[in-house]
């Protein structure tokens, strides 16, 4: 059933849009020489290091690759838990 729905949705979406989205991701991999798995591992390690010093909410974290011209940039938005709530949790 889900597959069938997927197929209907996919045939309605334009194949060129799909090509563009797939290319966006593969070009990031090619340019950074990072597989999706490595990128994920890097994110996890980053968060692990940061949370040694400050308390963060893993669900609110956003880390992604962004493109500016032909430059790749790693963008991280890591909201910290307010100090008050940290005190309370201790």
């Amino acid at each position, binding site marked *: 059933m889900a597959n069938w729905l997927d197929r209907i949705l996919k045939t309605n979406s334009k194949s*060129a849009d799909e*090509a563009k989205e*797939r*290319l966006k991701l593969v*070009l990031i991999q*090619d340019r950074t020489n990072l597989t999706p798995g490595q990128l994920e591992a890097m994110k996890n390690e980053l968060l692990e290091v940061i949370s040694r010093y400050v308390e963060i909410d893993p669900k609110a974290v956003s880390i992604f690759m962004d493109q500016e011209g*032909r430059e790749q940039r790693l963008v991280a938005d890591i909201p910290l838990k307010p100090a008050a709530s940290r005190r309370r949790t201790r």
Partner: protein
Amino acid sequence: MAAKVVTVTSGKGGVGKTTTTANLAVALACQGQKVVCIDGDIGLTNLDVVLGLENRIVYDLVDLVEGRCRLRQAMIKDKRIPELYLIPAAQTRDKSAVSPSDMVRLCDEIRPEVDWILIDSPAGIERGFRNSIAPADIVLVVTNPEVSAVRDADRIIGLVEAEEKGPARLIINRVNPVLTKRGDMLDPDDVLELLAVELIGIIPEDESVVVSTNRGQPVAFEGTSKAGVAFRNVARRLQGEQVPFLNLQENNNGFFGRFTRLLKPGRV
């Protein structure tokens, strides 16, 4: 005169590098420029047949580099246009016979005599590619609006930058206006956004390219075929002229466009 060296490359094979080189050479020569094109694809040469000069080859690039002939002897003159010459690459040679510094030396020898040197690079990122971009002042990257061609173009653009030959300029070849409009082919704007380089040409898919290649007479020679006009526009842009890009959608208003719309209302 001090020629500009333009290298045409692509990464992926079969996207139309040789067709592009031949047509730009013809277009530039028809616009009064003196042009030498060099086939950089030793071992898999094709520029000679696309230009229709395959029966006139005596010496080739390797003979020239190894000193078996003089420059003038290796330059085949196209009899159809005043100032168009080809230095062919033989089909049977070992591609390691020529080095990047050989190419730089050869181009430096030709530079004072012509306006443009066009080099048709082989596909891939091996020796032939390095030979072809070593003497380049301008690198043109040819791609098609397809995932594999765009991905390889991105790789090549990165390599061109790394060799300090950038920024590369992009030619999007074989754009099908009907598929693009339907959303089933990457739009030139999408390709540009993904690759983030400067555009120098959009060439529509055009049957007359196939016909003209059969005859060894590149479309840019004459006539009003869409691809021919598009190649001539690229040649003018190379010379510094501001030429607007063709509107590829306008032929949908012609007979076939209207006909297709009747068959598929709302989609085309």
